[in-house]
């Protein structure tokens, strides 16, 4: 037997989850896909007294196109998100990132909300959520609140979620207005499916004249949390996304990152890779925007 003993409760509704959390506080842990929690329990790094299983709750599953954006319910499997035509058409940046999330076998269990809740600094879903200004709905007994992804992550694996709160859905807002859109996602890892050493994401919008109207650039794996590089975004806006603009972006990335060395890569390697990947994702996004018809999704 690998895990320490625990009480096991299969919740049938969000109400049952929040009641269970309210009654048990930090002794309770939600299990969704379990792709991180089960090994932590097997190694006894996690010893929850109560496991609340949310896999059977219909209200926690599904992907919907709303007026304000795409809503992904928290317990939606990563593999279902990858197959979703709504995400393919409306959230191409997420669609590009999902194949990098673990492997087919873990995506079949792992959930979108679980990845958001865990907050691994190298994880792809939190990175895309950061790039797209996602909003997270947290529910607790008798109360609910919506938080911006910005500020949700306080450090590696640390979030603003209270122990008695359950993440129920994540809203990825759609960019409004005219313009040609393009996205780019790239990462460097030891092998496909491994944790990213550095991951970069970009989404841009350019006018009919080819001038960049809006840009979002984010990095993962180089800091305790995924983060936006606003100086790089400023350096792109109003330009033709040409070589001088990309040099300014590279400078902005250089200033913004403060990576750590670890077993897998040195700080200076991460810094260099971050600059290269940001340039690549912006070029990828610009190429895509140039080929897109105006007003197309995303």
């Amino acid at each position: 037997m690998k895990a320490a003993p625990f009480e096991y409760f299969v919740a049938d509704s969000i109400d049952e989850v929040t009641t269970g959390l309210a009654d048990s506080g930090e002794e309770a842990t939600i299990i969704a896909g379990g792709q991180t929690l089960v090994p932590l329990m097997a190694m006894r790094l996690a010893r929850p007294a109560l496991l609340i299983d949310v896999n059977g709750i219909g209200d926690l599953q599904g992907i919907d196109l709303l007026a304000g954006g795409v809503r992904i319910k928290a317990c939606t499997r990563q593999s279902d998100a990858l197959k979703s035509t709504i995400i393919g058409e409306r959230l191409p940046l997420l669609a590009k990132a999902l194949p990098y999330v673990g492997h087919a076998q873990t995506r079949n269990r792992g959930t979108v909300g679980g990845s958001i809740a865990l907050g691994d600094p190298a994880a792809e879903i939190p990175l895309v959520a950061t790039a797209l200004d996602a909003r997270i709905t947290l529910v607790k007994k008798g109360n609910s609140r919506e938080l911006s992804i910005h500020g949700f992550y306080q450090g590696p694996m640390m979030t603003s979620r209270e122990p008695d709160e359950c993440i129920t859905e994540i809203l990825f807002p759609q960019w409004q207005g005219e313009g040609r859109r393009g996205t780019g996602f790239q990462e460097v890892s030891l092998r496909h499916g491994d944790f990213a050493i550095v991951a970069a994401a970009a989404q841009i919008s350019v006018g009919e004249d080819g001038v960049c109207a809006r840009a979002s650039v984010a990095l993962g794996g180089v800091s305790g949390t995924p983060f936006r590089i606003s100086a790089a975004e400023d350096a792109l806006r109003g330009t033709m996304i040409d070589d001088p603009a990309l040099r300014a972006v590279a400078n902005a990335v250089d200033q913004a990152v403060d990576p750590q060395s670890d077993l897998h890569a040195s700080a200076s390697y991460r810094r260099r890779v971050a600059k290269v990947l940001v340039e690549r994702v912006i070029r990828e996004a610009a190429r895509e925007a140039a080929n897109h018809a105006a007003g197309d999704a995303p």
Partner: protein
Amino acid sequence: MSEKRRVSLAVNGTAYEETIETRLTLADFLRHQLGLTGTHLGCEHGVCGACTVLVDGYSVRSCLMLAVQAGGSDITTVEGIAPSKDELHPLQEAFRDNHGLQCGFCTPGMLTTLVEFLRDNPSPTERDVREAISGNLCRCTGYQGIVDAALDAAQRLKGQDRTAGPDGGESP
């Protein structure tokens, strides 16, 4: 004393109803409780892929799932992918013919992973196959034989579809 539950599930077409501890993983349940030791355990924390089984047709790492969570599910292990006791699955034949295994430890996970992959991707490229088995670690073959076997199996499965399909005319 750890909590126990009664679960019913089907494994390789056989229905089981068992009383198990809630902390038992699906992998240990299959091996210890049911004696289905074809599912191998390498790392037991979700890295090596050897314990992959199909849960309702989807590949899952059985060391990362609690057995109680599989209640009501239909599970296929490596013991259940061949059509009968006397025949191999075309994927298994392709592994044998292409030297897709040496020690055989990773093979159950490779096969179950590729059963799902080839069902969803009947005409994969070599790159697709390498990505599909990226979560399965092999320490003997250098993967070359496994990739060849998967590509060969894709051809064999397509041939099978043609003879067995409605257009083939010759269904058994």
